[in-house]
């Protein structure tokens, strides 16, 4: 059973699209697996929509009238839109399957169209970057083969691990697919995956380049972000 969920605040920001893309994708993948949070998001979306379109917009009344802010010609716009009767057909999304260490995994829809780097391997760990160009916020897929452990990190920023498949455990308990685990920099536990797992991770701090390396890498880093 999923025990770790995004906070109410994160769900709210997801609905408003005010999170980094990688975090929005993480929440999207969680709610695909978690009915509880999916229901919350549906309710929050209704509430936002209601506030936008059904309220009386009291907060705007102090501002200039719309006409002063913009001068769109609504009639022209309506004509321009309706001049073409075509509709957008529903296309079926091709599923994206990745092969990693003999496993074949269908990616969740939220990240299925995101470009990824090829896999890098060290021991039982493999990582593939998800290339979103979000500066310090970086996302990746992390695969751990049976018996491997999640590497300890040096940075102190925010870090999210969303378990996509498989499981891992630490002294706090066992984590299952769908668990949305947010770690602060103080955490030093080192989870172990007996049966292997695939995670989606997001971190917001590039300190894993220690300072000297960072300087050296700077010209290259431009190509990476």
């Amino acid at each position, binding site marked *: 059973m999923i025990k770790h969920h995004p906070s109410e605040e994160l769900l709210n920001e997801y609905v408003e699209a005010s999170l980094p893309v990688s975090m929005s994708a993480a929440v999207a993948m969680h709610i695909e697996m978690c009915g509880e949070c999916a229901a919350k998001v549906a309710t929050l*979306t209704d509430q936002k929509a209601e506030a936008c379109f059904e309220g009386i917009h009291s907060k705007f009344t102090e501002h200039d009238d719309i006409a002063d802010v*913009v001068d769109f010609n609504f009639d022209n716009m309506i004509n321009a*839109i309706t001049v073409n009767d075509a509709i957008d057909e529903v296309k079926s999304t091709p599923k994206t399957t990745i092969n990693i260490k003999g496993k074949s995994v269908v990616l969740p829809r939220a990240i299925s169209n995101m470009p990824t780097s090829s896999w890098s391997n060290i021991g039982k760990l493999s990582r593939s970057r998800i290339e979103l160009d979000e500066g310090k916020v970086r996302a990746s897929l992390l695969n751990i083969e049976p018996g491997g452990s999640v590497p300890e990190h040096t940075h102190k920023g925010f870090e999210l691990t969303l378990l996509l498949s498989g499981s891992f455990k630490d002294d706090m308990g066992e984590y299952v697919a769908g668990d949305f685990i947010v770690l602060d920099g103080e955490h030093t536990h080192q989870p172990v995956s007996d049966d292997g797992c695939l995670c989606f991770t997001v971190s917001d701090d590039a300190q894993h380049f220690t300072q000297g390396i960072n300087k*050296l890498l700077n010209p290259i880093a431009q190509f990476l972000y």
Partner: protein
Amino acid sequence: MQLMSNSSNNLKGSSDRVVTSNLSKTQTQSIPRKMNNKTDLAQLTLWLEQIAKDRNKQAFTEVFKFFAPKITNICSHKFNNPQLAGEVLQETMTNVWRKAHLFHSDKGAPTTWVYSIMRNVSFDILRKIKSKKEDNLSDDIWPLIDSDNSSEEGYDDHLENQHLMAHIDKLPEAQQQVIRGVYFMEMSQEQLSKQLNIPLGTIKSRLRLGLAKLKQHMGADHD
């Protein structure tokens, strides 16, 4: 606020009843919706269905008149950029016109559907501006009800990264391992030393050598 009263004349009958009938069955937690007398969800639903079935321009005009001033208002204040607000408005309403057949009233309120479109459109447009990305990821991250128009374009802007990977592949194995460990595994040199069972000093020198070589290769390509 005058602009928003366009549909108010169409409001007849009990708004309470309208609200109840529009709440989707899938919403188990029913939210008490206080209806503004300027909103008639049933009427909006009807118009959307007319757009879908008959490509009815009059119905679209009504839907447009209801949403356009609000979208304009919201976006003008959010982006503080009239041109951008206009772009979001046009793109959102174009989607409403072209995707009305994907709206199903039993799956949610028409306002929620339009809100979702507006949010997705804003997201893609902002990402295009901020990150110069035209990857249109919004419909993957916030799937619209029954809608599925994910783009199959935009895969090939990773050349730089592929490029870097190719260069890493050319390094001696020992240097590759350390660079991959630091960059892709996000491990510290100390952790890497432990993991690989190699003295820290060796890790440091391999990293230094590897990065210097990489920098040289990349620089040569880009000058």
